[in-house]
């Protein structure tokens, strides 16, 4: 460089260390994910699909639980007490239980995935 502006400062450019593939051809899914190969994306996709399936399952249970209730209350207007009891007190515990069930499934999915890609 013939001329350098004195106000320009030198900066050190760093990056994450490049991972070299094991010379032995030893297969590591973890590396595939880190290096964003097509195979790596397939792993991420499979995790997303599992997680989405868990979420949709719980969502469907929620829909089946809640969806028919307005119809039931409209069809049986004499069952006022039932409506008070269900809407006032009955639904909160099932909601919390559904949430706990989902969290347990989602965390298990993630543990399984980590075990798979870390090849343990």
């Amino acid at each position, binding site marked *: 460089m013939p001329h350098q502006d004195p106000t320009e400062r030198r900066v050190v450019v760093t990056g994450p260390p490049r991972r070299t593939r094991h010379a032995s051809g030893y297969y590591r899914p973890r590396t595939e994910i*880190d290096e*964003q190969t097509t195979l790596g994306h397939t792993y991420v996709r499979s995790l997303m699909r599992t997680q989405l399936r868990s*979420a949709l399952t719980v969502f469907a249970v*929620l829909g089946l639980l809640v969806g028919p209730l307005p*119809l039931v209350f*409209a069809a049986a207007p004499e069952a006022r007490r039932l409506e*008070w009891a269900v809407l006032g007190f009955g*639904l909160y515990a099932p*909601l919390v239980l559904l949430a706990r069930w989902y969290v347990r499934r989602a965390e298990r999915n993630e543990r399984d995935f980590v075990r798979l890609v870390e090849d343990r």
Partner: protein
Amino acid sequence: MNSSYAVPAVALVVVATVLVGAFGLRISRTTSDFYVASRTVGPRLNAAAISGEYLSAASFLGIAGLVLVQGPDMLWYPVGYTAGYLVLLLFVAAPLRRSGAYTLPDFAEARLASQAVRRLAGAFVVGVGWLYLLPQLQGAGLTLTVLTGAPETLGGLIVAVVVTATVAAGGMRSITFVQAFQYWLKLTALLVPALFLVLAWQGDGAPRHAFEEPAAFREQRLVRVQDTVDLKLERPLTVTVSGTVDGRPHDDARLELPAGTHRVTAGTRLTFDRGDPVPVPDRGTSGGMSTSLAASREERPLYATYGLILATFLGTMGLPHVVVRFYTSPHGVAARRTTVAVLALIGGFYLLPPVYGVLGRLYTPELALTGDADAAVLLLPDRMIGGLGGDLLGALVAGGAFAAFLSTASGLTMAVAGVLTQDVLPSRGVRHFRLGTGLAMVVPLAASVLVGGLPVADAVGLAFAVSASSFCPLLVLGIWWRRLTPPGAAVGMLVGGGSAFLAVAATMAGVPGSGPLHSLLAWPALWSVPLGFLTMILVSLATPGRVPAGTAAILARFHLPEELRAAEVKA
């Protein structure tokens, strides 16, 4: 109501809020502290903070008032507010935290790499936030008026000043402490009086007719009608009238009103006999949080109920003050566990407002007529227990109500100020954040003074419907669908959220009048949410070339557990 205890209780809540906020100020140092508490908030503290922030005036006063006036169908509101968190947990919680964004516009930009979508999301955040702030300020005004007879704007002004001061001084860190403190305060303020009220109800012989339709007077009662109302009678009713009914003046006259609608002029005194059913005021004639579009439910109750369910279930995830809380969890797994704790905390809280609603139907049924149904929670202790005990319990409830206004308002201010600072004001940093806080509060305060009288339930319902039709598609598709494009997201948000906004605005302006069209516009979620999703998907599919280059890497970041991200490569 005796205000000699209630005013000190409200003052105490305000002072305690400022003190707890100041405690946070001492350890709030960096910009990151300001916005997201440096991401070190544990699940339990964070869950209490989220719940404290979420339980607003509508929850604390509004639900009991709605139940009092309109019966058990209104219990769908608290159920929907709670179930909204379950849906949030299923589709959004952990990926949103892992996205590493501070706000909804940050999320939009990180996912779609588009400044235009970011600005549009920011505009929606500010709009929804301001809409939701307005009723908080008005609720505060109403409470202070009921307690002391102070002018309506004073309560809103107090809340605005306290919130702006705490948020600007300490930012998110102090807000986390304040919110957590206020959850427990609100729970106590409803739980303790509720226990005494139930005991008083037991001592009264545990009358059960509150569950029947319609509510009935259980003793002879004189009701003074504050604002002119149209009363709908299903059966003829005999009352003693001093004042003007249907344009004819009466003086302490016994009057038999035939079935149908009757106009009762402001200031009229009606004396009802024991066992008389409480007449239902017609739509739109009385103000307050409990009269709302909900009254139009009679025209199409099933459609309206499903519209309400969809809006609350899907709208929660897009509320700006709810979403910003998830960034404070240390990692995705903690974000999920926090959400479960939140569900338990708010579910527990929502067991209480229906108790007040039921007791209100028994002991203060005339509130449905006077247009002050929201005051039921505040007035019940005095009415049922009375004396010193009633005053003290009433003071506790009043303090809790103010905690509700303060906490929700500060969460919303925080979210709106964050967007204003990052996207509107010229430079970032703590000083501009303080300026943004002022701006975030001034607009709704001015609106509440100028406009006035927008029913709380309407504004809250509008916020949920707009959020469900704009942010819900953006978040769900952004997290789970790799073919989402910036044009698709922008058009989908505009079409879904915009049409929901216009529909409810038209209803409020009274454009459609009545009939099926009215129901469609008053409860837009049932068509505007699918419309938002569909537009977003179709426009994205039509612009396949615009899928952002780094999509695969970003989705990997959203979904991979943190332990796999040691060598994460950012696209």
